[in-house]
């Protein structure tokens, strides 16, 4: 399993390198973001997953999708807010269950090479009816694969082992 992860990380680095070398910056990209929660205890999130939207979701067969977000025509310095939570009236007041993310997007592409990065934080909330679970997931700036380079790759931004939550992202052109 460790070997598999190491190979996937190497592949991810390779994809990022190919993207940097083979394409020049041209149009704005769409930022795609997905959050999953493990439902099969034996399922492991891979650092990089291949596939277009539907294939990508199908491959994650041991996890349920929580969010699939597509931010069209993102440009450098955009702050992207992604939120999917439920406020529910309980005995002790309003509970809050879900995910709330604020991400910064950097497109520092030049005519010679491309560079797309995202970073920020997500709050994983499970509050109400006696529960008070609030996890702050810090996402360091992470290079994103560009599907316009011909490889539909998703890179893992963050994984929380306790809640079984993982975030993935990439950029696309169409």
């Amino acid at each position, binding site marked *: 399993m460790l070997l598999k992860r190491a190979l996937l990380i190497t592949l991810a680095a390779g994809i990022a390198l190919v993207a940097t070398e083979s394409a020049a910056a041209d149009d704005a990209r769409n930022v795609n973001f997905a959050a999953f929660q493990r439902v099969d205890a034996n399922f492991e999130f891979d650092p990089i997953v291949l596939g277009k939207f539907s294939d990508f979701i199908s491959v994650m067969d041991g996890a349920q999708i929580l969010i699939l977000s597509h931010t069209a025509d993102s440009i450098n*310095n955009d*702050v992207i*807010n992604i939120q999917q939570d439920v*406020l529910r*009236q309980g005995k002790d*007041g*309003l509970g*809050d269950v879900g995910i*709330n993310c*604020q991400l*910064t997007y*950097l497109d520092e592409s030049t005519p010679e090479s491309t560079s797309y990065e995202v*970073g*920020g*934080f997500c*709050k994983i909330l499970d509050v109400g009816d006696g529960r008070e679970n609030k996890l*702050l997931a*810090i996402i*360091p*700036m992470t290079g994103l694969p560009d599907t316009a380079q011909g490889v539909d790759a998703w890179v893992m931004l963050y994984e929380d082992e306790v809640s079984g939550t993982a975030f993935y992202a990439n950029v696309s052109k169409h």
Partner: protein
Amino acid sequence: MDGMKRLNLIIKKLRDAMGSMKDFDELEKAGLNKKDVDRMRQAMESKIRQMMEDAIYAIRSL
């Protein structure tokens, strides 16, 4: 929606958003550039201002 319920909901989100301001310090500790984090702070402050306006409107509507 009942006016008080609507107000409670806005105040809940407002309180959470205000509490988020301290989380941006963690981003700087994690190595994000200050100018990028400052831009995120500005975005959150803008959301907070909007929610405060919503709260004032909800209070006036009671």
